[in-house]
């Protein structure tokens, strides 16, 4: 989308009052981001607030389409760096930190005592003892389900995996897909894998696997896939050619019962006609009762590229984005959870409350997401493997061997 100048009206007023000098002195802050439509509007409102507080700064937001952005960032960081850029926490930011493309913003953390207010995400923003950006939102993953479908077949909401699998027979008899997904873009399949692995083997095992320390041919991994094989026959057919939003539509239409998704999907379910009365959310069921519950909650972040030209204003903006007020406001609009401990959570939204409850009580640890925890190349190969397994489960050995070969090459 075009650079949006929220300040146009304001700037015009100033120009009329003070002549052209005010405009000439306005410092431009270039911000590249990848917001969807609703979050974009929320962000623009925040930017307007920021500009009102800092009238000499003009934030020029250039918005990219979500998927395209992930490719574009590698290019613009090295060629025409903005002053601010959206990205993700955890391992996903490691290549940029290692290559010196993100600026060390430890001083912003220190000056604003972010170590306290953003404590929950501090670890995922820290590498080599320094902080490389500011987190502004996160959201839970879990299972979203169609309450009407559950009523229709007389199933109860499961708490264990065995119950979940048993329900699948009921749904199948009613010609409803027990578990739906759309893996055309690959990543939705990784959500299923992450949870199966977290519930089967626990957080530490999952982290060791995604960071390349555990072989893919390990028995633990096989145990995870054995659980997956139990639901494989009940997963929506042709998911490999279906976009995740189209699969959400299947659930909204009552053709599917459950969907492993992130909370951002609620908007899509509701667009498809679901309401708080028909849409349900549950934590992913327990598989191994001895494994401590861990959850998945990806964190979205803002960084200052090393090539930024207006560093001072960029740091002011980061501090602003880290503040409790800004995060409250933005996340209310996003329908997601603020990182800042001083922020308030929209309590009238059952999904946000459920997510807040789920994450604040997690004893086992919080994973980012497969493609953020694992090395990028490994993530891609892994997600292809997950998709292949869901289409042709018989290929499991070949898939795991392939992933193990890749692991040995990538993490040598």
């Amino acid at each position, binding site marked *: 989308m075009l650079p949006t100048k929220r300040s146009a009206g304001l700037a015009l007023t100033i120009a009329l009052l003070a002549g052209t000098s005010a405009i000439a002195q306005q410092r431009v802050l270039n911000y590249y981001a990848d917001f969807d439509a609703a979050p974009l509007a929320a962000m623009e409102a925040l930017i307007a607030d920021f500009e009102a507080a800092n009238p000499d700064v003009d934030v020029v937001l250039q918005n990219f389409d979500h998927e395209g952005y992930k490719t574009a960032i590698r290019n613009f960081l090295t060629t025409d760096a903005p002053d601010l850029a959206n990205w993700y926490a955890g391992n996903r930011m490691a290549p940029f930190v290692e*290559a010196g493309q993100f600026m060390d913003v430890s001083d912003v953390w220190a000056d604003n005592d972010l170590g306290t207010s953003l404590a929950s995400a501090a670890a995922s923003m820290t590498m080599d003892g320094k902080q490389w950006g500011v987190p502004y939102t996160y959201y839970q993953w879990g299972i979203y389900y169609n309450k009407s479908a559950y009523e229709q077949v007389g199933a109860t909401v499961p708490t264990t995996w065995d119950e979940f699998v048993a329900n699948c027979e009921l749904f199948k008899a009613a010609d409803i897909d027990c578990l739906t997904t759309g893996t*055309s873009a690959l990543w939705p399949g990784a959500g299923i894998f992450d949870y199966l692995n977290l519930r089967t083997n626990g957080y530490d095992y999952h982290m060791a696997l995604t960071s390349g320390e555990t072989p893919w041919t390990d028995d633990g991994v096989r145990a995870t896939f054995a659980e997956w094989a139990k639901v494989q026959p009940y997963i929506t057919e*042709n998911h*490999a*050619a279906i976009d995740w939003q189209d699969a959400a539509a299947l659930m909204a239409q009552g053709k599917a019962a459950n969907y492993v998704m992130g909370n951002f999907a609620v908007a899509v379910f509701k667009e498809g006609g679901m309401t708080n009365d028909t849409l349900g959310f549950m934590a992913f069921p327990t598989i191994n009762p001895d494994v401590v519950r861990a959850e998945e909650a990806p964190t979205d972040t803002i960084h200052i590229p090393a090539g930024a030209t207006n560093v001072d204003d960029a740091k002011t903006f980061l501090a602003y984005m880290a503040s409790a007020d800004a995060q409250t406001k933005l996340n209310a609009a996003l329908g997601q959870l603020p990182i800042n401990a001083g922020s308030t959570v929209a309590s009238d939204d059952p999904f946000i409350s459920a997510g807040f409850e789920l994450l604040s009580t997690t004893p086992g640890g919080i994973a980012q997401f497969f493609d953020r925890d694992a090395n990028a*190349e490994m993530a891609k190969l892994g997600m292809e493997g997950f998709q292949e397994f869901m289409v042709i489960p018989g290929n499991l050995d070949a898939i795991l061997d392939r992933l193990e070969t890749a692991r040995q090459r990538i993490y040598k």
Partner: protein
Amino acid sequence: MAVAAALPEKRSRSWWAQNQQTLTPWLFLAPGMAMFALYVIWPIFASFRLSFYDYDGLGKEVWLGLDNYRELWSDPAFVTSLKNNVIWLVMYMLAVPAGLGIAIFLNQTVRGIRIYKSLFFFPFVISQVVVGLMFAWFYAPNFGLLYKLIEMVTGKGIAVLADPNLATYGIIVAGLWPQIAYCMILYLTGLNNVAPDQVEAARLDGAKGLRMLWYVILPQLRPATFIAVVVTVIGALRSFDLVSIMTNGGPFGSTRVLSYYMYEKALSEYGFRMGYGAAIAVVLFAIMMIFISGFITKMIRDERGVR
């Protein structure tokens, strides 16, 4: 020569006047050659060089020797891409006879035939991005037209792009659509120049059906066939747009071709192994070179024949 007469008088035979016939072609060539060398010739060598390095576009280049190439042979995704490229090449060749068939069908003089010809040619004018979107919609699971049609006939729809065994063929069919149109227009132009008296004479001699086509018509269409084959081979090996729009190489990499895999490895979201990508590009280049040298040899032969 009116133009020449209007031009100024001959000047004294300066150095320039003596040498202008030798120098002029080089002056005229210079800008074009400079651009071409910078953007086409030099990058080929640069990619060859890069294929021996590990480079992620951010950090330093690290010398690897032949490691990238060694990895290629044990990379299942590369083997799949190579195999798919062969399928593309073979299937794409159908565009040549199909184009000829439609051209013969349309090679009549009736009212409005010109409009029919241009409408048949129409798919070639449309961007492959649009063609890809059209066919993706046509194949879409649950509500695509083809899916519905198959469901109506057999009771169970087929999601072409979700099936690893069918997806590549599904994309090729989308690619054949404009390619057939291209071959058709080449043949229509060729057919315009088929000597009617020869056809008539052959007909009097009793030539019919396939024999007529093979012995009388096709030899006269040889130049059209040559170009049709050249553009079809190149089209098959360049098959990037459709794969990118319709499947992104999926399901699980089963529709990758070299041109797409190279992009995926070098520039896409999870990629940025530019050295490895360059090695893939070198292999693709080598395959293309086999064809290019064949074409060029033939063109040089023709060139000599003319002079």
